[in-house]
Structures are given as C-alpha cells and as structure tokens.
C-alpha cells in the first residue's frame, strides 16, 4: 500500500493507504477528523469540502494520494482554541445552521468564496454556494452569515 504524507490543520501526518482511499476517508477514518462529512455520491452536496493548499475542494472526489505533500485544512482546523473563525462566528450569530451536517462544508466553501471575493453581493454569495446543498435553512441565514463574515474578515 502506498505511503502518504501531508499537513493537516498544521500538523504533519502520514499513513499507509490503499490507492483508492479518498481524501475524505483518510481524514475521517485514518485521522478521526469526522467533522468532514459525506452527503452524496455524485460530488454535488459539498458536505465534504476542505481546503487543499488554500482552495476549497470536494474531498470525496479526490484521492488521498492526490493530496500528497499538500496543506489540508478541515473544519477542525479553523478555530483558534475557543476563538472561532469569523465565518464560524457569523454562522452562529445568524443561525446559519440547523442540523449541522452540511455546515462544515458550507463554512469551508464560504471562506474560499470570501477569500476570492472579499465583498460579495447577495447574488454573488448565492451563486458562489452552488456547490453546497443545505436542506434545513433555505440558505437565507447562510447568505446573511457569509455577508457578515465578509465584512468582519475584510476589516
């Protein structure tokens, strides 16, 4: 089985995996980072989104081996102790989550969105979240959360 090493949430990790191991499986099963979720099998729901070298990617549609040597950030790596990332804080302030299942992917995607476009309009936020499906919130409060986080992150 191939050997694999990468940096996850700032820590060097390594493992021996089958070639077919998806990045999300490596995170959840080998590293016990179960915050990254799997909500579909057609690469559409976005519950599995993590950052690979700073960009949002669907970890269910990527082999662990393709992240060899990469810097990976998961939902577990965002907060600094008890201090939440501004995106997490905004989701809490605006009730941007209900069941919480899509939330990790949604937050990771939203951070990438704001990194690319620091001052997004409501329409740009809605379009930018195309790759993440939420069934609880109707997106209303997610959109508010992202807009608020963008203001905080920009200041």
């Amino acid at each position: 089985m191939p050997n694999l090493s990468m940096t996850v949430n700032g820590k060097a990790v390594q493992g021996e995996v089958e070639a077919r191991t998806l990045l999300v499986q490596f995170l959840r099963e080998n590293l016990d980072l179960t915050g990254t979720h799997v909500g579909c099998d057609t690469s559409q729901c976005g519950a599995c989104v993590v950052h690979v070298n700073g960009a949002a990617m669907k970890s269910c549609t990527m082999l662990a081996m393709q992240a060899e040597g990469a810097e990976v950030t998961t939902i577990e790596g965002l907060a600094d102790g008890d201090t939440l990332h501004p995106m997490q804080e905004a989701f809490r302030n605006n009730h941007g989550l209900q069941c919480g299942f899509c939330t990790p992917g949604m937050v990771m995607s939203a951070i990438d969105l704001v990194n690319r476009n620091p001052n997004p309009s409501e329409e740009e936020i809605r379009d930018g979240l195309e790759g993440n499906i939420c069934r609880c919130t109707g997106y209303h409060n997610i959109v508010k959360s992202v807009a608020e986080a963008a203001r905080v992150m920009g200041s």
Partner: protein
Amino acid sequence: MPDGINTGIGASVTRVEDYRFLTGQGTYTDDINRPGQAYAYILRSPHAHARINGIDTTAAGAADGVVAIYTGADMQTGGLPCGWLIHSRDGSPMHEPPHPPLAQGKVRCLGDQVAIVIADSLSQAKAAAELIEVDYDVLPAVVDMKAAAGGGTLVHDDIGTNVCYDWVIGEEGDVDAALAGSAHVTEIDIVNNRLIANAMEPRAAVSDFDRATGEYTLYTTTQNPHVIRLLMGAFVLSIPEHKLRIVAPDVGGGFGSKIFHYAEEAILTWAAGKLARPIKWTAERSESFMTDAQGRDHVTTAKLGLDANGKFTALKVETMANMGAYLSTFASSVPTYLYATLLAGCYTTPVIFANVKAIFTNTVPVDAYRGAGRPEATYLLERIVNKAAKEMNLDPVEIRTRNFIPSDAFPYQTPVALQYDSGDYMATLKRAQELHDTAGFAARRAEAEARGKKLGLGYSTYLEACGIAPSAVAGALGARAGLYESAEVRVHPTGSVTIFTGTHSHGQGHETTFAQLVSERLGVPLENIEISHGDTNRVQFGMGTYGSRSLAVGGVALDKALDKIEAKAKKIAAHILEASTEDLEFNDGNFTVAGTDKAMAFGEVALAAYVPHNYPIDEIEPGLDEQAFYDPANFTYPGGCHICEVEIDPATGVTEVTKFTAVDDVGRVINPMIVAGQVHGGVAQGIGQALLEEAIYDPEGQLLTGSYMDYCMPRADNLPSIQVAHETTLCTHNSLGVKGCGEVGAIGSPPAVINAVLDALTDFGVEDIAMPATPARVWQAIQDAKA
C-alpha cells in the same frame, strides 16, 4: 433574568448546540465506531417486482474478509409494523401485507433488501456482494396508481387487490345535495408530486450486542428512538425494552424521513446478536434515494360549490394516495387523518366529503414528509379557491376574506372533525400584504413587462393542525400508540439542571429552546442547563419529534415538570424561610417572602433538597427531580398567509421567485431566530416542491431521479431571501400558548408559488400547470396555450 441578559421566552438566543457543529465536533451516527466493528453492505433488488427463485452466496461467503451473509431464509422475524389502522368505508380493516426486513421470496420495489453482507471492511463487503447470484423472475411492475387501483398486476398476491383501504369522511349525500344547489361549482384535477426528503445526512446505523448482559445497542439516525425501540423490540425482533438501547445521536436532518422504523435497523440489530460483534452500515446517497420513505404523491379530483356571493357551500374530494410497495410506519394516517381533516382550511365551508383510496404500487414506500397530508390539503384548497375566484370573476383575496372563519368564531368546529381553538386569518393576511407591498405589485409588474418578463403574485392562506393528540381520540381513529410526551427535570445539588426529553432534535434547536423554557421558569443561566435527548437508556420515554410536536407537546410536558419542581422547591423554601407557601413569590430564580426582605436563591433550595439538614422531611422526600407526561387536549392550529411573487422569462420558461413573504401564527414564540429559521427552511422545501423537485419512476419501476444529477435540490441561487413575520394568537389549551412552527413553511408555500406562476402566465391563457413548474413545463404550457 441572570446578569440582566434575557435568555428566557421571546429571546433570540444564539444556539447552544452550534459550537460543536461549527467546529466539526458533532457526533453523527457515521462518526461512531465500536471496537472490532464489522461493516455491512446491503444487497438490494435492481428490479421493482420480481420473484426470487434462489440466492447463491457460496462464492461470496468465501470472499476475503467476509464475516457472514444473511438472506431472508436466515432472518425469519416479525415484519415491520404499521402504526395506524385505517378502516375502509365498509368497516373492514385496511390490508396490512407483511413487510419483511429481508425479502421473502419476492421483491416489490427497487431497493428492496435481498441480503446483508458483513465483512471486516466495507470494500470487502461490497466486493463480496458482487459475487452473490440472485435468480430473479422479473415480473411486470405496477407503477401508476390508477392502473394499480384497477387490478391486474398485484403488488401483494395474497390480498387480491392493490387498494389498501377505501376510506371516507363526511356525509356524501349532504355534500352532493349542497353542490347541486350551488350557484357555481368549480372542479379541479390536481396532482401532488412525489418528493424525496433528502436530509443531508444519509441514514446510518451501528449495532452492537453484549453477550455478557444480553443487551442490544443500536445507534441510528432516527427522529424518535423510543418508537424504534418499541416497534423493533416488540414487533420485529422480540427483544424486551430493558435489553434494547436505541441511541439517536446528532442527526443531520429528518423532515419526516427518519421517523420510520427501517429494515436496516432491524437487520443490523439482529445480525449483531447473531455475531456478537458491532456492525456498521451507512447509506450512500443513491441508496437513500431508493430506500428512504418518500413523500406526497396524491392524485385528486375535487368540486367546490359556491353561492352567488362566492361563499363556499360544499367541498367534495376524491383522492388516490400512493403507499408504495409496503406500508411504512405512519403511511396510512397521512392521507386520512392528517389530510382530509384539514380540508376546511381556514374557511367556513359547511359540508365536506372526502374519499381516499390508498394504493399499493411497485415503488418505494411513501410516508410522512414535512407537513405530511397538510401540504396536500392546503395545495388542493388554495388552488381550487383561486380557480373559483377566476371563474366567478372575484379577486383572489376577496374570495378568501368572504370565506374566512371570523376571528370571533373560535372555538370553531369544522365539518371534518377538528375543533380549532384560536386564529386570526384576516390579521395574518393583512400583515403579509403590508410586508409584501402588494400595493406596489402593479408597478413592479409593469417594470418587468418592459424587460420582457412576466410577473405574477400568488396567495396561500393556510391552516394546519399539529401537535397531534389527544391519545384517546387518536386511538379511537386507529392510532396504535399514545401521542403524549414526557419530560424530566433533574435539578442537581448545586442548582444546575439536566432536562430529559422524549423529543429529539435533528436541527430544530431543542438544546436552546428547551433551555430557554427552563431559564425563564427557574432563573438558571443557560450554561447551567443541559438538554438530554435521543438515548433510551437516559430518557424515560418519548414519542420523538415529528408533526411540529416538540414544543407543543414536549415543551408543555417540560412546563408541567417545571410546575412540579417549582411547587416542591417552594415547600422547601417555605420551610427554611419559615413562611407559608402562599406568602412565597418566585421570580428571577429567587424565592422571596412577600412584604419582607427574606429571600432564598433557587440554587440554595436545590442544595437543601440534597443536603436535607433543615428540611421538611416528614412532608416531602429529599431530592429535586420531577417528571411529567403530557397528553394534549387538542391539536394546535397554526395558520397564516404566504405571498409569492415570481418573474417568468417566457423565452425559456424559467421562473424566478423574486419575493416571498410568510406571516404565520405559530402561537407564542420562544426563540424568534429559531422560528424564522424553521419557516425559511420549510418555505425552501415548499418552493422546491412547486418549482424543482419530483421523484419520477419509469413504467418498469426504475427511479429516474435517483441522484442529485436528476433530482433537483433547491440551491442557494434558486431561492430568494424570505420575509418572515408573525401575528400571534395563543393556543388556548396548552400552558405555553404555543402551536408549532416546523411545518408551516412547507405547508403554506407551494400553492402560493403555483398561484403566482399561473398569475404570471395569465396573458398567455395558461390555466393549469403541474408541480414542479420546471422551465420545460412552463415553456410547454405557453406553447400549448398558444396552439
């Protein structure tokens, strides 16, 4: 309130549960791993209807890592039960064909369970499953309800018909006479499209068996762990409650689809017992599409009689409701007591008759999905009311207001069994019109017209019933369970509090809302309150969360337990403060003796209860831990007005919801932020039903919309921001005055959307359109109207 921060009733407190979800520390079923666990893959039928001549597991059994393979021949247990017995109009009980967890000689829908493969890893289980040889005789499938009702191919040979029941409510003769005497009769044919709940967390289960104690444990994605314990333990596997623990940890959304007792739960629990080894199963999304109970799927013909002034005189409804291949847990109740009893809506229609035929087909079972029956009733009413208005040349608002039950007419007895306790439909309508700026619609329409777009405005004034109860009435109507809820308030010696509730949160925010109730009553800060739910070994009992019942039933049970806590604490405080209980006041967490400066904090009382040195030990027991069961006296009746505005591009048929306003009466609001969130989510699902979503089977019973590639889920760019407000009348028969808010969005919104679409298409002469009004359908409707 503590520290001057309001954390009680009416405060938009941010949620207690959010920190763990936002940091990836939630514990969903698939996050749970037991030492030594094996993995299960379920081999499912690729056919909608087939006889199984034989299953050869020889090669599969010898494959790498395989622990065991079981088929229906191995698992001879009870079948999955149905929780509600409906009687047909001739008095006969509904047909209840067996629903075996693993197929017994026949498969009746796509995805039916044929075998379970248990292996050391999931890949090994999947690889082995490919080696199982199933000898099928593929049989013709019956998918269309009308064809099924006519006989021919039978889903269940033994019962000789595909009609599960033929049920009626109301007096048909009275309704026919009233229709015959009406100045005008509006008729409508309507389909309520089949939906798939699609909670984002796929179903999953982890089972375990402890040979030393004989205890089974099942972690499962359910909305009601005690119900699963009861159904699986008593009916399927014969495991007594004290040896069966069901845990519903964090659950990623349910919307009804996780109420039901599913085959996988029973198969995994049974297999764990056989192997004395933990087993894990997690559905892939494509598996969810073909095994989660689906929703809606009604075909209806209705007639509404009106007098010359547009007052409704009678309503007659004929509905066929799809049950799918087997009766799911609450399937039989949805198109009857959750549907036909709602056909008065918020109107004074004097006589109503409904006939509902429930039909078996070779499709995935159909059961409750957000709103369950009430969206179907509302859609029918709000469409036929609009059609009647058009036919009688009345404004759609005018026809509604002429027929509203007046706000001074409560309690109001409908002709279809329900007695509404409170409501003010004119108030919600007026407020919605103001918020929506309906007065400005004409100008907005002209502006859109100038851009080549068609603007439409649609109303829905709906009424629903939730907080289902009372048990005795439900029992008389066929319910096989009670519909109460329980709560335990455990005050700890230092004054912190743990609440045990039989309801379950899978997104609704109980850990916050219920804590607010406690904070309001006892003056305890939120951080000192823990809400425990979802574990049958921790929580006394409960019926779980569905039908917008958590607060209206479970919250009231909690309120009653708090009454007992307060009463006992008062006796303890009175003893210590040397006053009579009548002279004690309890505010903001302090007992005070009226007219004196003598006071005692609630925490001190709690300590005294557990360190009973100075204590009325002859009168009351030590400790401060109380429990209550609450069986409601009536349903609760939320209602309101939804107004939708759509913009249609006639060139492509694309419909955009540009503005949506929901003014709901959900009774007293505990946490406005959470209630608004519930409405947003419900409206999104309603817009989804109206414009995007539909489960489609081909004539062979294959699901054509079996993934997100073909089943259109609402995404952020499909939806507008949603304006939400409340006009409140209190529920008169529960102590909190609450009604329920989980389903109002999904119930009220679909007809508002479709009425708006039809309004936008008026110029083209389009008079009807089916849900979902996809771009292709809208475009086609315009072409057909032109032709």
